[in-house]
């Protein structure tokens, strides 16, 4: 009997009959066996599949709940006041409810990415077929997250469908646990949070693998092109087509139309948020130039619309303001929605002719249209932008107030403080209004970069003063100068790059990976990102960027007029700066860590998540920074990092995620692992000392980053390098030597060379360590030994003789 394969089949005897075989039961296991790949203990884990691993992590990193609301309003028993950890009518207490609330955010974020993944996969399979090979660069391990979690080694787009089936099924199961009368224990909600985060990275990976393979995006390319970025790089004398969102599927049809009709020089195509990043990746894998410009992040959305510059706005999905249509209508800008996730109540024109839609929208018969047919969209959007540009010019639209009006509006302010109190960052708006009366608008200008353009000030003002427009008008000069360069997203880190750099990461001689991800809700403006990245790059850390952070980083230049993307090379090597790409490219960051375990350390990867996570936890000095995290997606991304033992620091706004995972360095019993060589217990340094926490300022953040890259596997050279950076950054930014530096010292060669003698004296004098001064050796004192052969693990079954 011959084996059946997937694909299309015809039967000779039957005319007009074609059979499609999709999935075959046991195919993954069979294929793995044929290829000699052993599948680990947890392929496609269910909710409880990795619970023991989660509990191991959570016993060291305890949940810290800081509720955003003390009440629960989930069912009609309530509202219930859970204040003081009381139980509500259903029996749930505050801790469990907070964990449940966090889970809801995490799976919302994961669903956003997975929904995106399913949409673009479906779209691309429609265009290229299920047999289209996955091609993301010179790698054998093309889908590290997918393979570690599901055991599937995908080779074609069709293979990714089964991966998405798993992710979607698990997300449904997790969502079910949110319902009243389900889970009651905070600790199990916590495990579910980590499960949701892990699924998120699989969903993201599918999205990016599919689009890189089909849309000509850079494939692990360190030479990915530089892209213009900033509100100032838009030539507003041309028709401007603005695209907002995250899913580039339909936008590629617009780009193709512009290219085919030679409209590239006649109009501006610009994007906000991750669609912008992916537009600049589209068809650049053969050295072509990017065909679009990037304006920036969500924080630029309302400012860009209110500038009146766009002639047409196209939105797809995620991080698109809910009021885009209302705001655009005020300035006669038609809006086209292109994805079922955002339709704004607009009429579905997908089956209408392009000419009819253009006529209706340009005559303002309708404020916009829903177009789900991307061929129609491809024609309508650019042609409408060209037409609207003339119409809007003739209308003479004045979007922002004049200078005279600025003064009048300042005079209208009664200094009640409502705007300041309602501002998410409590910016000093009243002082700007006061100065504005005397025609001094510099204080408004100072607010520009710190303002995230949420528009809450406008809503709060009892005098209906358009505060945001005032800030934008006063900052016109700054906005015109907002021109930078961002490296287009290069996709994943390739296997050869891992082979070259993996050893340095595990031994610590490359001091760590700093992954700066996430959104633009910064506590103190965008420049902080530049300062952090530059400081860590100068110190030879590998800095990896993605999403909105990748954009904002490109906005600043050094004294030589260079952005960091121009200053630093983009290989996966110490001191390099990498932009992996858009939001969904975050999966390549966790993927990199998995690859180090799989490729450098030869750990079995398929369906072997716990062992891979355990390896990463103990050996790879990586810290995520989501300095402006605001979204549910950022919460799910962080949770996915956390399950792999990768710690994440968020900015102070991140405290509103209502839960952190923080260890207690003073609790010695929490900082022990097994030595896999013999199963004995060995003490480890308290690093990372958290899995998810906040920092107040970048001055606090910088030493935290260095410290939390320390891992048990560091060799002496590695520990010395890491400790040097921790001490230097503490002295530079906090003005003092960190109090706990000595706790990371195992022997004298861990100490920074230049200060070794001085530090040995301190160890002897302040901490009572015994020093042999002739040989300058530590005789006693350290809480742990230095043993490069040790095999630190949190998982008993991985120890010799255990299984």
């Amino acid at each position, binding site marked *: 009997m011959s084996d059946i394969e997937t694909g299309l089949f015809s039967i000779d005897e039957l005319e007009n009959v074609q059979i499609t075989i999709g999935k075959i039961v046991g195919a993954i296991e069979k294929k793995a066996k044929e290829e000699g790949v052993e599948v680990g203990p947890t392929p496609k884990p269910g909710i409880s599949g990795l619970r023991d691993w989660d509990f191991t992590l959570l016993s060291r990193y305890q949940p*810290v709940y*800081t509720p955003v609301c003390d009440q629960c309003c989930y069912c009609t028993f309530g509202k219930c006041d859970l204040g*003081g*950890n009381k139980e509500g009518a259903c029996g749930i207490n505050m801790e469990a409810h907070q964990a449940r609330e966090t889970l809801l955010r995490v799976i919302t974020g994961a669903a956003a990415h997975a929904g995106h993944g399913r949409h673009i996969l479906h779209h691309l399979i429609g265009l290229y077929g299920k047999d289209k090979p996955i091609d993301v660069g010179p790698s054998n391990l093309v889908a590290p997250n997918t393979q570690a979690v599901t055991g599937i080694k995908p080779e074609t787009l069709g293979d990714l469908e089964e991966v998405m089936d798993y992710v979607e099924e698990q997300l449904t199961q997790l969502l079910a646990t949110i319902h009243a009368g389900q889970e009651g224990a905070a600790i199990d909600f916590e495990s579910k949070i980590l499960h949701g985060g892990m699924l998120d990275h699989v969903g993201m990976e599918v999205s990016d693998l599919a689009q890189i393979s089909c849309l000509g995006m850079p494939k692990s390319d360190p030479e990915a092109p530089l892209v213009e970025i900033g509100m100032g790089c838009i030539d507003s004398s041309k028709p401007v087509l603005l695209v907002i969102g995250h899913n580039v599927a339909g936008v590629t049809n617009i780009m193709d139309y512009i290219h085919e009709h030679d409209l590239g020089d006649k109009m501006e195509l610009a994007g906000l948020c991750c669609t912008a990043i992916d537009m600049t990746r589209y068809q650049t894998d053969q050295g072509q130039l990017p065909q679009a410009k990037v304006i920036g992040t969500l924080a630029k959305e309302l400012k860009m619309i209110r500038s009146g510059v766009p002639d047409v706005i196209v939105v797809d999905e995620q991080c698109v303001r809910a009021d885009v249509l209302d705001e655009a209508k005020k300035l006669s800008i038609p809006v086209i929605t292109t994805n079922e996730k955002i339709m704004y109540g607009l009429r579905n024109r997908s089956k209408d002719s392009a000419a009819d839609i253009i006529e209706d929208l340009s005559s303002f018969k309708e404020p916009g249209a829903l177009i789900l047919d991307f061929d129609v969209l491809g024609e309508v959007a650019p042609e409408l932008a060209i037409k609207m540009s003339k119409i809007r010019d003739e209308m003479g639209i004045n979007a922002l107030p004049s200078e005279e009006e600025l003064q009048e509006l300042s005079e209208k302010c009664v200094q009640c403080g409502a705007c300041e109190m*309602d501002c998410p*960052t409590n910016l000093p708006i009243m002082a700007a209004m006061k100065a504005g009366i005397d025609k001094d608008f510099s204080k408004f200008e100072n607010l520009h970069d710190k303002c995230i353009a949420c528009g809450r000030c406008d809503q709060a003002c009892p005098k209906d003063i358009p505060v945001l427009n005032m800030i934008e008008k006063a900052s016109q000069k700054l906005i015109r100068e907002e021109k930078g360069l961002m490296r287009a997203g290069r996709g994943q880190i390739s296997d050869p790059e891992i082979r070259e750099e993996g050893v340095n990461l595990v031994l610590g001689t490359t001091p760590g990976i700093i992954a700066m991800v996430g959104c633009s809700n910064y506590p103190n403006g965008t420049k902080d990102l530049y300062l952090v990245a530059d400081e860590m790059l100068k110190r030879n850390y590998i800095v990896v960027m993605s999403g909105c952070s990748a954009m904002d980083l490109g906005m600043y230049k050094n004294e030589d007029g260079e952005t960091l993307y121009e200053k630093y090379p983009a290989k996966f090597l110490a001191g390099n700066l990498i932009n992996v790409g858009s939001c969904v490219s975050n999966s390549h960051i966790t993927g990199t860590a998995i690859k180090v375990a799989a490729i450098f350390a030869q750990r079995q990867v398929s369906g072997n998540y716990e062992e891979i996570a355990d390896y990463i936890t103990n050996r790879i000095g990586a810290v995520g920074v989501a300095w402006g995290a605001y979204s549910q997606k950022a919460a799910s991304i962080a949770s996915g990092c956390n399950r792999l033992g990768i710690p994440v620091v968020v900015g102070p706004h991140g405290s*509103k995620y209502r839960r*952190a995972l*923080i260890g207690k360095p003073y609790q010695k019993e929490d900082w022990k692992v097994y030595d896999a060589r013999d199963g004995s217990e060995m003490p480890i340094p308290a690093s990372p000392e958290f899995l998810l926490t906040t920092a107040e300022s970048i001055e606090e953040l910088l030493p935290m980053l260095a410290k939390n890259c320390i891992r048990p596997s560091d060799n002496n050279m590695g520990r010395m390098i890491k400790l040097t950076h921790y001490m230097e950054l503490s002295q530079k930014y906090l003005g003092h030597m960190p109090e706990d530096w000595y706790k990371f010292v195992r022997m004298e060669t861990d100490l920074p060379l230049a200060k070794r003698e001085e530090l040995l004296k301190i160890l002897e004098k302040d901490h009572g360590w015994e020093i042999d001064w002739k040989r300058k050796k530590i005789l006693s004192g350290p809480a742990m030994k230095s043993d490069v052969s040790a095999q630190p693990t949190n998982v008993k079954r991985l120890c010799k003789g255990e299984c």
Partner: protein
Amino acid sequence: MVDTTKNTQIYTTWGRNVAKPVNPNVAGKIISKAKRPLLVVGSEILNGDHLLVEKTIAIAKKGIPVAATGHSITALIDKDIEAKYINVHSLGHFLGDKKWGGLDGQGPYDTILFLGHKKYYLDQVLSGLKNFTDLKTVAIERHFIQNATLSFGNLKQEVHLEALDEFIENL
């Protein structure tokens, strides 16, 4: 005498349990009577003209140990006060642990005073303390911090500085 209890307007709500507005003299006496007080100072003290740094030092000189969060420690080194750096989120976690020895190893604190923090950040940290500990928390900030046990109301900067002086006099 400064009245710091008038304007307690809030723009978002955490729930039913809201801070009691307090005047500086009363706040000062409460801290004076505490067995083991701790002043938690945030990086916002470094803003503007450093007037809050002076107030912080004056409070600390009354014998109250300081937990310096963010990078506020940079202004408190070599000032002959007992100040140590700690991350405020970690501090919130440790404060709820009766086994934590405190910054000085002398055991847990009973009354926590807050100055120089971002309003939204502090309210989050305090939400954890409010719901999961029995600590008394006192906010002497410019804004009404609703998740504290006691808080000044929303104040203009000059009134806030005056209130802090009165608070210090009553320590």
